[in-house]
C-alpha cells in the first residue's frame, strides 16, 4: 500500500507561515509592562490602590462581556484589551477615589467609547483617557483630591501645588526633587508617580517592539524642548524640561497611552507628527492653559486628528511609480 495518501488537504492563499504574535499576546505584554507601576501604586498608596485597580479591570471586563452578550456578539474578552483599558484607567485615578469611580469610569470607557463605536480597532479615542476626561468633567472634586504616598494627608499633585505651578515662586520653592519624581514618592495618580517603574515597563515594550519608539521620543522630546524654551521665568531657554518630563502624567501618557495602536497613525511619519502634536499640546496646556495637566487632552486631541494624518500621509511606494515624477 502506498504510504502517500491524498486525504483532505486544506487549501488557502499564501503565506502559510505566521509570526505568531497575536493581538492577545500584545495585550498581555502591555499588562506585564504595566505591572511594576501597578505594584508601585499598591506599595505607595496601600490596599485601596489594589481595590481601585481590581475594580476598574473587573468592571471593564464585565462591561465588555455584558455589552457583547446584549448585542448577541461573540465575546472578545480573550484578546485582553478590556483589561488593558481597565488597568490604564485605574492608573490615572487618584488614590482617594471612591470605589464607584473606577467602576463608572471603566463602564464608560468600554460601553460608550469602545463597544458603541464597533469594539476593538474602531474606537476613535483612547477609551481609558476618554473615561478619565469624562470623570474629570463630571466629578472634578473627587478626581483632584490627592494623597501623598504612605500618608493619609491630602495634598495636591506636584503640578497643582499652587494656582500657577510654573510661576517664579513655585520654581524657586519646594518642588519634589528629580529623585522623588523618579522613585514616585510624590503625590499624584495611582500609576503616574514613579517614573522608574513606568520606564521599566516601557523598556520591556520597546525591547519586544510592541510600541514604536518614535512616539515617546517625539512626545517627550517636543515637550522637553518647548518647556525648556518657553517654560522658564528668566527668559528663553531657562525652563526645567526634566521636571516637565518626569512630573505629572507625561511618562505614562507617552509610553502607554499615546502608543495605543488603534487611536494613533499607522505610518512612521504620521507617528512623528502625532507624537510632536502630543508634546506641543501638553506643553501649551501646562504653560498657558487653565488645567494643571495637559497630557490627557493632548493625546485625546491628537487621537481625533489621527484619521486626518493617516488620510494625508499615503507614502509613495518603493521606487516611485513609473511615468510619474
Amino acid at each position: 500500500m502506498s504510504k502517500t495518501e491524498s486525504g483532505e488537504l486544506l487549501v488557502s492563499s499564501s503565506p502559510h507561515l505566521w509570526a505568531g504574535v497575536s493581538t492577545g499576546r500584545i495585550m498581555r505584554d502591555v499588562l506585564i509592562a504595566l505591572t511594576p507601576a501597578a505594584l508601585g501604586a499598591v506599595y505607595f498608596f496601600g490596599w485601596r490602590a489594589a481595590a481601585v485597580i481590581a475594580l476598574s479591570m473587573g468592571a471593564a471586563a464585565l462591561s465588555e462581556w455584558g455589552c457583547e452578550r446584549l448585542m448577541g456578539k461573540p465575546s472578545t474578552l480573550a484578546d485582553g484589551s478590556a483589561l488593558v483599558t481597565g488597568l490604564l484607567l485605574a492608573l490615572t485615578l487618584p488614590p482617594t477615589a471612591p470605589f464607584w469611580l473606577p467602576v463608572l469610569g471603566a463602564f464608560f470607557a468600554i460601553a460608550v467609547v469602545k463597544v458603541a463605536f464597533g469594539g476593538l480597532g474602531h474606537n476613535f479615542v483612547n477609551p481609558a483617557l476618554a473615561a478619565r476626561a469624562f470623570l474629570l468633567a463630571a466629578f472634578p472634586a473627587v478626581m483632584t483630591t490627592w494623597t501623598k504616598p504612605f500618608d493619609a494627608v491630602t495634598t495636591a499633585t506636584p503640578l497643582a501645588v499652587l494656582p500657577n505651578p510654573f510661576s517664579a515662586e513655585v520654581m524657586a520653592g519646594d518642588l519634589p526633587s528629580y529623585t522623588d519624581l523618579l522613585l514616585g514618592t510624590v503625590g499624584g495618580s495611582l500609576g503616574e508617580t514613579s517614573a522608574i517603574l513606568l520606564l521599566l515597563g516601557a523598556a520591556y515594550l520597546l525591547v519586544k517592539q510592541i510600541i514604536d519608539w518614535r512616539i515617546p521620543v517625539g512626545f517627550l522630546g517636543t515637550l522637553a524642548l518647548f518647556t525648556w524654551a518657553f517654560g522658564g521665568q528668566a527668559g528663553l531657554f531657562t525652563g526645567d524640561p526634566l521636571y516637565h518630563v518626569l512630573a505629572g502624567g507625561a511618562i505614562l501618557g507617552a509610553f502607554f497611552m499615546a502608543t495605543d495602536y488603534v487611536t494613533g497613525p499607522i505610518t512612521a511619519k504620521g507617528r512623528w507628527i502625532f507624537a510632536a502634536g502630543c508634546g506641543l499640546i501638553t506643553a501649551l496646556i501646562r504653560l498657558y492653559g487653565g488645567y494643571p495637566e495637559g497630557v490627557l487632552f493632548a493625546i485625546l486631541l491628537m487621537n481625533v486628528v489621527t484619521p486626518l494624518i493617516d488620510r494625508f500621509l499615503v507614502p509613495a511606494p518603493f521606487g516611485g511609480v513609473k511615468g510619474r515624477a
Partner: protein
Amino acid sequence: MTLWARFRGGVHPDAHKTTAQCATQPLPRPERVVLPLRQHIGAPCQPLVKKGDEVALGQPIGDTDAPVAAPVHASASGKVAAVEPRLSPSGRMEQAVVIETAPEDTPWEGLPAGLGWDFDPDLLDPAFIRDRVRQAGLVGMGGAGFPAAVKLAAKPGCEPDAVILNGAECEPSITSDHRLMLEHPEQVVLGLRLFMRACGARRGIIGIEANKADAAARLSQAVAGDPSISVEVLPVRYPQGAEKMLVWALLRRAVPVGAIPLDVGVVVQNVATAAAAAVALAEGRPLTDRIVTVSGRVGSPGNWRVPLGTSFVDVVEAAGGVTGSLARVIAGGPMMGTAQADLNVPVTKTTGSIILLGPEDLDTTPAGPCIRCGRCVSACPMGLLPAQLCSAALASDWAAAERFHVRACMECGSCSYVCPARRPLVQSIRLAKSELGRRARQGRG
C-alpha cells in the same frame, strides 16, 4: 560582502533550511509524466504531439508563436497516452501531454549539438544564445516562470549594464538553489556569462543570502580571475530574493512600480535558470528536469533531481512517504507557494520545493479586527499600507485600492505573516488586483 545592503521592511521567518546538507539524489524513473503546456507566465503552448505518438527525451511536445512563452519538452522517452486538461500546481486546469515512460531514455535526434564545457561565451553571437535559451524552454526557475529568453531580448533605449543572478533563496525551507550552487557552481557561472553576452552587459553579480556561505565560497572560487563577475553575500531577510529588493540591495537602483529591472539597466535571472542555460548550450539538452526540495512531514526530507511532469506522489514516495496525517501540501515556499488541493499534480519548471504539513503545523488562530498596530506597514518592502488596502478591498472600494497603490504589491506576504489579528491582508490585495485586472481587460474589450 554587502551585508549592509538592506532593503526597507521585510520579515525574518525561521529559515528551516534543514535539507541544506542533503546532496541532490536522482529520482526513480516515474512510470508516467504529465507535462502542462503552460509552465511559464504567458501564452500556453500548442501541443506538437498527439495521443499514441512515440516521443524521445528532449523532444519538443508543445510550442507557440506567441512572443511571451517557452516551449515544453518530453522529460522522458515513451508514448503519449493523452493530451488533455490536467490540474497543474498553479491551481489551474492546463492542457497537458501525458507520457507513459519507456524503460530507457533515448535522446531526441533533433537536439542541437552541444558546444562542450570549454567554449568562450564571448565568441558567440548574442542572438544565437537567446535563440538557444528559448529553444531549451528556459523560464525563471525561482518561481515566477517568466520566459528567460524574453528577458534577454534587446529593447530599444534600454542597454543593460549588469546581469544579476538571484541565488538569495530567501523563502524558508527551500534548498534546491543552494544545492545547485554547491554542486554545480561552474554551470551557474557559465550561465551568467552566457546571459551577460546575450544582453550585452559587462557586469555580472551573483547575490546570495548569508546563510549559504558555503555556496558563496564555491561560486567565488568558480569566478576567480574574472573581474567582471562578483559574488555578493546579502543579509538574511525575506523577501531578499524579490527582484526589486535584490536590484536595490546590490546596485542601489530602485525599479519603479510598473517598470522592470531592464528599465534601470539590469537583467535578473535565477541561478537555476543560468545553470539550465549552460547545460542547454554546452550539451544541447533542453530543460527536462530540475532540483526539488522535499521537506516537512516526510520520511527523509532532501533534494531530488526530478524529471518535469513527475507527480508529487512519486516525489514524496521517493522521500520516504508521508509521516503522520497530511493537512497541507505547498508547491514552492511557505511564504509565496501554492497550497495544493491534490497531491497528484506534476512537478513543473517552477516547482523548487514540495512542503508537506500536518494539522499540527497549521495555525488556526481566527482573524480578529485590525488593531492598527502598523506591523504590516513596517513589514511591507514596497512601502505600502496593507491594512488600508485590505479594508479598501474588503469594501470593494477599488478606487481606494488604486489610490493606495495596490498594483505595486508583489504579494510577498510579509504583511499577513506579521499581522497579530490574522487579517487577510495580502489575500485581499490579490483580490483587488485581480478585480482591477478584470476590469481593465473588460474596458479594453
